[in-house]
């Protein structure tokens, strides 16, 4: 192998090594750094010039003794070794085993940076995935090949929700070959364990590949970890024809690592200290989800991110929302009221839902029911707001119906609990029970046919009560 080895790092700071006098180094190449104790660190060239070369070291540059540090340029990009043996294994960000078992051996290696999928080669995602969760299936359905993040906050049950999705997700009426790629970035020991136990309990461990970087692991490694995980996912989906569900958690820790490197490099910041290229960088990750024509597998992605200070306009959720195909937003308020999953409905969205539900997919009325629930809940929230000002006694009869609707909607429809799994018909039936609390004239998103078939409104009963 053509390799070059040098000992001339002239400076190290913030995870970056500056090297002078190393000519002809290829941009983005893989680097191995051996420190004075003989321990190896992994890196990548992120700038290459005649004057100097900049190396990003995934394990960080803390306590490097530059006099005694050797840097080896491997003359090839950062690659992941691929084989079906990936399944059931645990790795770090650069694909080294973390489970005490030997490394994967295979001739097949791929550049973890991947390359852009040709839009002309993509197939549009349309297959409804039933997660068994009404707040998702009924209102913001997931389809195969979609990227649908969970926007959460510290202390909210995003991990439990992600695990529940992994546990319950299925295509109604189909036994499919599936795999899970789990990429943990900067998560706590407990969170990592939680997932591991979850996978074990539900008996899917043999179908899971884990890439783990914990909170006390070097942050820069997260930048490469997400890419390694997706390289594995692409292999499983498009070489082995598996339907792959990728869980990336927590993207906020990823973005923070990116900011750290950008700051060390002196890049011009755009918002809140994050570099202007955060959007493109995140897109390189998220856009690796999808379906490809003439390929049988798929990559469905559920990134999890915690919104700093619960602020959805913070650059990380904001830019994520601009790239992904919707988002499931969790609510601290519902959580504190004991609603699980605490899905905050108004800002949640699934953009691919429209092509995966309705006649021939779930049920004919599904799209209109979802739209009506949104509209009615929005109105109910207005009423609740009004009630807090003038007192509920002052509300009109119809407004009181809306209050009752909001309560039931949150408690029954959304708050189904962690162990309940509902099929989509059950979800729709509960939806109709709730909509039957409201007068038909105000349900303009539903067709007259829908109302006749499913709406169970008893005007006289309502009148009598008054």
């Amino acid at each position, binding site marked *: 192998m053509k390799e070059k080895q040098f000992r001339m790092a002239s400076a190290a700071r913030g995870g970056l090594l500056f090297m002078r006098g190393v000519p*002809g180094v*290829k*941009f*983005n*190449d893989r680097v191995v750094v051996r420190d004075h104790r003989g321990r190896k660190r992994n890196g990548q060239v992120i*700038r*290459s*010039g*005649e*004057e100097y070369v900049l190396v990003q070291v995934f394990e960080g540059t803390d306590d490097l003794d530059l006099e005694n540090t050797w840097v080896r340029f491997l003359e090839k990009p950062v690659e992941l070794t691929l084989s079906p043996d990936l399944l059931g294994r645990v790795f770090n960000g650069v694909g080294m085993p973390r489970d005490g078992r030997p490394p994967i051996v295979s001739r097949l290696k791929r*550049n973890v*940076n991947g*390359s*852009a*999928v*040709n*839009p*002309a*080669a*993509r197939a*549009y*995602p349309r297959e409804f995935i039933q997660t068994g969760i009404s707040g998702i299936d009924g209102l913001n359905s997931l389809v195969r*090949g979609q990227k649908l993040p969970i926007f959460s906050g510290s202390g909210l049950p995003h991990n439990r929700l992600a695990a529940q999705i992994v546990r319950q997700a299925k295509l109604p009426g189909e036994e499919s070959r599936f795999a899970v790629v789990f990429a943990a970035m900067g998560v706590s020991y407990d969170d990592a364990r939680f997932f591991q136990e979850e996978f074990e309990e539900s008996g899917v461990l043999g179908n899971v590949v884990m890439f783990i970087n914990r909170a006390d692991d070097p942050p820069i490694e997260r930048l490469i970890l997400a890419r390694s995980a997706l390289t594995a996912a692409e292999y499983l989906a*498009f070489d082995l024809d598996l339907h792959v569900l990728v869980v990336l958690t927590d993207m906020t820790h990823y973005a923070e690592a990116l900011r750290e490197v950008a700051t060390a490099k002196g*890049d*011009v*910041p*755009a*918002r809140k200290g994050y570099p*202007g290229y955060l*959007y*493109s960088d995140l*897109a*390189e990750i998220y*856009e690796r989800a*999808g379906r*490809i024509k003439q390929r049988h597998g798929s990559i469905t992605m559920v990134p999890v991110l915690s919104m700093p200070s619960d602020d959805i*306009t*913070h*650059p990380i959720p*904001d*830019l994520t929302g601009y*790239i992904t195909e*919707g988002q499931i937003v969790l609510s601290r308020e519902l959580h504190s009221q004991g609603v699980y999953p605490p899905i905050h409905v*108004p*800002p949640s*969205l699934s953009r*691919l839902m*429209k*092509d995966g539900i309705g006649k021939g997919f779930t049920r004919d009325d599904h799209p209109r029911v979802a*739209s009506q629930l949104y*509209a009615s809940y*929005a109105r109910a929230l207005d009423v609740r707001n*009004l009630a807090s*000002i003038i007192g509920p006694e002052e509300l009109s009869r119809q407004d009181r119906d809306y209050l009752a609707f909001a309560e039931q909607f949150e408690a029954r429809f959304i708050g189904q609990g962690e162990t309940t799994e509902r099929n989509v018909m059950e979800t729709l039936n509960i939806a109709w029970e709730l909509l039957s609390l409201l007068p038909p*004239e*105000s349900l*303009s998103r539903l*067709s*007259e046919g829908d109302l006749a078939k499913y709406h169970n409104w008893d005007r006289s009963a309502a009148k009598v009560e008054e």
Partner: protein
Amino acid sequence: MVERSEGVVIDINGPLVQARLPGSPTGEQVRLGALGLTGEVIGRSGDEAVVQVYESTEQLAPGDKVVPLGHPLVVELGPGMLGQIFDGTQRPLDRIALQSGDHIARGLVIPALDRDRVWGFTPNPALRVGERLKGGERLGTVQETSTIEHRVLVPPDVFGELIQLSPAGDYGVETVIARVREADGQVRDLQLFHRWPVRTPRPYTQRDHAVAPLLTGQRILDTFFPLLKGGKAAVPGPFGAGKTMVQQQIARWANADIVIYVGCGERGNELVDILETFPKLTDPHSGKSLMERTFLVANTSNMPVVAREASIYVGVTMAEYYRDQGYDVVMVADSTSRWAEALREVAGRLGQMPVEEGYPAYLSSRLSAFYERAGRVETLGGERGSVTLIGAVSPPGGDFSEPVTSHTKEIVQTFWALSKELADARHYPSVSWTDSFSGYVGTAASWWREQVDPSWEQKRATALGLLAQADELSRIVNLVGPEALSPEQRWALEGAGLIKEAVLQQSALDEVDSFASPQKQYALLDLIVGIYRQGILALGLGVPVQLLLEMPILGRARRAKSRYASSELEQLASFGVEVKHAFEQLTAEYRDGHH
């Protein structure tokens, strides 16, 4: 073209490469390294040039060669563009897929126009050999798709004597179909296509007034905030508010001849959506497949950022080319914010001084120069054609005071501001009636007056007035409760609610209502304004407002849009008669003076 020697790479910093490349002017195209990556010189000092590279620079190294190509970024203009999907530098993505599979390989050079295809050319019967020809004149025609006749033009920079014109026949795009002797005696060979530099607007004889509305079939756009053919519009909104849907609806239904959809830094699946659905959709104006008049330029968010900057110019140059053939062209760009961010990224890496949120000082001038390429013109060939530009804007955090949104707002005439509150309640299109504006209402009004109904302007004003009044009343209700409102005020709230639900809300997914003809738009507006007025009369007679609010026919009025298609206006009119009867029945006893 001057042959210059190769240069050499000095430094690679992401998409920006420093090269020793004497004499290469700014704008020149180059190829770098063993793969022949394509790039563009964007600045220089002394012998050193700064090159922005349209492809990933991975594996490039200092010492690699740089070959100057002697020309700026150009596009090929000729038959074979319609129905295609190109990347940000006009490479044909379907033929790239044939060569490099699912992923886009680097260093591929594939011409935009298929060299293997032949076109049936009919020479312009009015031309005679020996005549003087000038740029923009029509050499002949090619039937590009079943609906679009491609007019093969003399390139704008050619003047001289026609010395040869090929007879009718089947030719490839590179076949010489005419020869012109220019003033200096040089003979220019003309082919079915020519090239044009994307950063230079194509010339025209003069600008003309925009006169006709661009009808999109969307009520909130056409009826409330109209756009004209040749106009400039922006669609700002936070993520998920519906910018892409608005633009796709326009691409589907607008009464334009040619539609160009530029996906600039957005999702791959959105382009696939168009590629899969448009061929099956029927253009309501021509009755043929929508793909016959459409093509796409795609630089998705995961594709190299520098080509994103180019994609907007590539798109608009192709738009001008069809304009020059005498067509009305619409180009939608989703999203101009990603284009601006690409500018920012390059400026940042060049070390240029950022002025606001990291953007360089020239952001606003670049934006206005881009939108300036919209317009209705008299072409060099003496025809009328137009380019309408519609840009999505994606403000960080949904904050409209950020630089790209605020500069764009200064430039465009039609501003469709999308609202997160409306989108969260699934009120689509989420175009805000308070934050949007159109400077074209006057011109549009004369069209509606003549083509649809003389009272259009007045009904539109009534509706907007009601919406504004209702916003005010809602504030009062939220302070003191609904009891404080008079019956008239409660009815005004209901009227505004009807306008929102029965007129403004229009689901793109509703097969019946996705497109509404101008006549249907007016009929619905008339129906609802009529209901409001009949209610006011009833209140005047002493009918309690509660009775009005409970009229079952209001529920049907809310659904009328999905019940009656644009081809069923007679049924819609009879529904209007039913509504009238319902009011008459309700008011009868009060009119007879029993109460």
